[in-house]
């Protein structure tokens, strides 16, 4: 299964970036093989608005089923919902530990945004 994890760096040992839309990088990780692809999210980091919407579109096109991040705003959540991507919020620590949580099915899926929108 492919999952997306927001990350401050480009490896599995990088720290999870608490922001979704404006995360530095997003790692697309295969939970079986631990192979991963690094998405550069710098365009969205500098977006005026709607960073989460575009980040959600981007990971949807990568065929991701689950997103693990710190905070997810209302527009991002709405987009992810339409894309059929489940969200795990309040994730911290390393990307690797997030993957391990997912492998151990030790996660709780969010039923809504856990951050306010920005203007």
């Amino acid at each position, binding site marked *: 299964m492919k999952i997306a994890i927001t990350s401050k760096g480009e490896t599995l040992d990088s720290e999870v970036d608490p922001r979704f839309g404006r995360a530095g990088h997003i790692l697309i990780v295969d939970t079986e093989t631990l192979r991963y692809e690094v998405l550069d999210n710098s365009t969205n980091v500098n*977006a005026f*608005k709607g960073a989460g*919407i*575009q980040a*959600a*579109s981007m990971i949807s*096109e990568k065929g991701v089923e689950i997103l693990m991040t710190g905070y997810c705003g209302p527009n991002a959540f*709405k*987009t992810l919902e339409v*894309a059929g991507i489940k969200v795990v919020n309040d994730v911290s620590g390393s990307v690797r530990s997030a993957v391990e949580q997912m492998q151990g099915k030790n996660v709780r899926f969010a039923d809504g945004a856990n951050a306010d929108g920005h203007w």
Partner: protein
Amino acid sequence: MIISIASGKGGTGKTTVATNLASAIDEEVQLLDCDVEEPNAHLFLNPDIRDRETFFVPVPEIDKAKCTYCKKCAEICRFNAIAVFNQTIMTFPELCHSCGGCMAVCPENAVFETGREVGVVERGETGSIDFTHGRLRVGEAMSPPLIHKVRSFIRKDILNIIDAPPGTSCPVISAMKGVDFVLLVTEPTPFGLHDLKLAVEAVKKLGLPRGLVINRSDIGDQQVESYARAENLSILMEIPFDRRIAEVYSRGELIVNEMPEWKGKFLELYQNITEMAG
């Protein structure tokens, strides 16, 4: 003529100056309250509201039968108001700035215009004052389109006084651009001065004649005065921190009506503005 009353810092007395200036002048004037996020000039003028018009901004809607998910609309949108992924397209009307770019670039003519209600314009009158204001719907983030709508009621044949919103960002620029004179209202405090400087820079960029009113002029310090001197910004009126003025204001009344000596001062202010605006 159009005079815009702005401040930078909020709560310095823009509305006090705008409503009293409008009331002091005996000829027909129009007051346009462009502080559409929290209009309050009506509380002092009590106009008879005769017209009420709902205001809509154009936003895109997608004809999904025509859309090929080519992403051109999403790519041109600087505000990320359209998302396209995996044969899905979503619009976020509250992020849209109504530029029409998505409609212009769509090769399939799949993007069409629809309206989103963002507020209301109300018009009325009181004595010799023609009154227009906008009320932005609570929760809306973008006021400039409604401010432009309020300004569309400017009458070329008479004096128009715009009560601008506070700050120095887009809403204020919308309320100042293209006017004949900007009257800045500040208070002699470090906060007042800090925001006044930002406002003066904005007015300079717009290349508009300007003058200053110092409200509560006998509190705070002398820094606003020294700044005005250095900037060659004329101080056209000083309003003291007077308990009677505060009481009149708190009752929702006008200084020029309750303290008649102020009528002459506001008329003199108008005279000076007329000369400076040229």
